[in-house]
């Protein structure tokens, strides 16, 4: 059952990724990205990380999809030109990276038994305990991103 779920999610993740980089309509690409992100959330649930799956759906998928569709409506996502620029060197680079990574994965010795992950309570405790300073820095980063986005998108900067 877990293996079946793994293969279904793998097909969804990789198929969605291929649609993201190959479709002509950027709206379709945005929704294919959402499918990939949702399938990744499925992977997180399968890997005993339900909190991460929830964050992935609510924050990542919801946030990215909303922002992207909004930007596409304003900036215009359709174009009549070819969708790719010099696809062959890009394909060679991508395949080389995949070959190097895949070779490293297949040659490494992995632990035989999976240890699993703990529940959300321990994550919360470590976020507000050992990782309190990075957590607060993250809130500063988000504040900076909000100000930066507002500044860039202001009317009179044009």
């Amino acid at each position: 059952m877990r293996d079946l779920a793994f293969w279904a999610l793998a097909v969804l993740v990789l198929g969605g990724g291929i649609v993201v980089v190959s479709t002509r309509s950027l709206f379709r690409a945005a929704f294919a990205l959402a499918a990939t992100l949702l399938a990744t959330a499925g992977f997180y649930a399968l890997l005993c990380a339900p909190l991460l799956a929830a964050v992935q759906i609510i924050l990542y998928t919801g946030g990215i999809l909303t922002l992207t569709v909004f930007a596409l409506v304003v900036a215009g996502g359709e174009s009549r030109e070819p969708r790719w620029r010099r696809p062959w060197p890009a394909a060679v680079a991508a395949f080389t990276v995949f070959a190097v990574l895949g070779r490293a994965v297949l040659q490494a010795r992995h632990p035989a038994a999976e240890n699993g992950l703990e529940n959300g309570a321990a994550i919360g405790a470590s976020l507000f305990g050992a990782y309190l300073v990075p957590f607060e820095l993250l809130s500063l980063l988000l504040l900076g991103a909000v100000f930066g986005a507002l500044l860039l998108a202001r009317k009179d900067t044009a």
Partner: protein
Amino acid sequence: MTLAPLLLVASGLFAIGLFGLLARRHAIGVLLSIELMFNAVNLAVVSIAWSRGLLVGVVLVLFGIAITVAEAAVGLALVLLAARVRRTAVLDDLRDLSG
């Protein structure tokens, strides 16, 4: 389900995202490809954390997701600015920005 197939899926997704990053012509398409690559890295981190029982991997990915969303907000604001000022978000038409 073992670690190696999970890492292979993550590697494949990373390579697909790299192809899109290099080959896409529209700025929003490039941003979407970068999201794919981020997602692949997150998946690899969670897989390794799961196989070793390391909770710190989940915390790392939580931070990574928040940073990615901030990056997407600023990146899309840049695209909107380019679309408003230059009337295009196709990267080849913005080439003279590189000075």
